[in-house]
């Protein structure tokens, strides 16, 4: 059973995003015939990482008109490719782009899409996707009644494992053959985010603040902790302090903010309301720092320390700095 699998790739500056590498490993569980497609401008063939991932080929749509993803254009190109190659499974990240594209593809192909999945298993030649529902209170094992089978995966949730065998990767350069004028949907302005740190949904380490953080000046303490751990660590916030104007909405974690799955999530002064948990429950290691020993956050934390974050966080910064110089 060698299913023909396509992964819709995403890149940063031409390089495949690390938050989707786990999807490549997952696909390998189901088949050896794996292709990835990348659309954009100034792409690289990514052979180095793909050789170690068991991917057989990469389709490159490299054109300056593809610099900023336009769902209309990307969708047309992908449908062309899908119709040409007849894939059985199509996987993508549950990112902004993945969420833009995959339902459009599902509708055109009249098939089903399992979105924001945290796992997938094959049983009796059928695929079952595990996805969180009711704000992560439950999981649903979802099957698709249609072909091809479509699924998007939560960024960072799947583990990437290098394959033992290095495989050869075929690079196929595709031409853009569609009309890029006369679009019903036009990007007219882009204001790039200032930070070169990873986005919350792609970050490996998040230091998050809640009501315990009294003002935006104090929030900088969390930024210092992030820096102490890693240059790529970022800060997050609960809805309470975003609503209070202490942190921007862009870093809000939770049901009405972002859903994250980092390796390490340190919750400082966050009580652990259901709506917040919905956004970070699938983090690998959760650390809770809170004055209140009964705070619900301790129920889902792997490690907890009862205390005032204003005392604990500076100590933590010290200890981590000590660790790094040892």
């Amino acid at each position, binding site marked *: 059973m060698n299913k023909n699998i396509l992964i819709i790739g995403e890149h940063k500056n031409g390089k495949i995003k690390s938050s989707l590498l786990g999807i490549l490993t997952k696909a390998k569980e189901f088949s050896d015939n794996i292709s990835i497609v990348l659309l954009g401008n100034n792409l690289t063939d990514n052979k180095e990482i793909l050789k170690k991932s068991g991917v057989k080929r990469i389709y490159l749509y490299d054109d300056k008109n593809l610099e900023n993803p336009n769902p209309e254009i990307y969708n047309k190109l992908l449908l062309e490719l899908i119709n040409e190659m007849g894939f059985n499974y199509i996987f993508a990240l549950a990112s*902004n782009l993945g969420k833009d594209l995959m339902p459009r593809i599902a*509708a055109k192909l009249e098939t089903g899409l399992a979105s924001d999945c945290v796992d997938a298993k094959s049983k009796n030649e059928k695929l079952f996707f595990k996805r*969180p529902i009711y704000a992560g209170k439950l999981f649903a094992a*979802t099957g*698709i009644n249609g072909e091809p089978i479509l699924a998007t995966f939560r960024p960072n949730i799947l583990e990437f494992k290098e394959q033992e065998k290095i495989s050869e990767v075929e690079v196929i350069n595709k031409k853009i053959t569609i009309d890029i004028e006369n679009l019903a949907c036009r990007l007219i302005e882009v204001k790039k985010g200032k930070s070169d740190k990873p986005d919350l949904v792609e970050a490996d380490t998040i230091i998050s603040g809640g009501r315990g953080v009294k003002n935006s000046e104090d929030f900088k303490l969390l930024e210092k902790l992030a820096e102490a751990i890693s240059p790529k660590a970022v800060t997050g916030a609960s809805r309470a302090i975003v609503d209070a104007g202490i942190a921007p909405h862009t870093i809000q974690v939770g049901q009405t903010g972002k859903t994250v799955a980092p390796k390490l999530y340190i919750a400082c002064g966050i009580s652990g309301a259901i*709506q917040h948990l919905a956004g970070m429950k699938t983090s690998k290691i959760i650390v809770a720092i809170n004055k209140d020993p009964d705070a619900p956050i301790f129920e889902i934390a792997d490690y907890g320390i009862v205390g005032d974050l204003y005392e604990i966080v500076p100590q*933590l910064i*010290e200890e981590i700095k000590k660790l790094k110089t040892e």
Partner: protein
Amino acid sequence: MKIGILVKQVPDTETKIKIRPDSLGIETTEIKYVINPYDEYAIEEALRLKESTNEVQTVAISAGPERAAEALKTALAMGVDDVIHIIDNDAFVSGDGFLTAKALSKVLEQESFDIIFAGKQAMDYDNSQIPQLLASLLNIPCITNVSEFEFKEGKVIVEREIEGGTKEKWEMTLPCIVGTTKGLNEPRYVTLPGIMNAKKKEIRKITLTDLKIDPAQTTKTEIKKFSLPPEKQSGKIVETVKELTKLLKEEARVI
């Protein structure tokens, strides 16, 4: 101008959700239902457009079981002009995106809206698919996750944020779909006059049979089993920061 608003009734986030003994669904007896919070931003934006523009008619549509009529009544009480209920007590319960979108698309085609507002996702199944599925089925543009909206010179201009804090401004021709998110506006509360007015209005009902849709053929996803998240092993409460740091390094290996 005619504006469509897609609305869904979902369990309140505070409600405890219990799995049925057969694991094939949830216990519905004690659930408190509300209008999907993201749809409230959709209703509000449609109403603001109505208030700032001449001759705008607003219509809210919901695909769901009988109880979904409550969500439509809330929409009426907020000030929406008319409502349509695509009613089926079984077909929509599992939240299959394709079926819901297919049913909605038939009504949307008939109604000929200029702009369709929809919440970017429903807080029960969290699929985030409807606006995009509809874009494809209706062949019209759609931008979702919209936090700023403007109707200018016959075109829709929206702003949304994507990864990395990057903000994008898009221009769409009519007809188009706007997927709404938090930050777009502050939804108004229902008023007593609104509720009284809503009582006088009729809810137009349409069935899947009316739309010539066979749910068995049109349902593309199926939930085989509902389960609880794995019991997390009791976490360790540590006494000192020194201990915590050591555990994070040596046991968890995250720093």
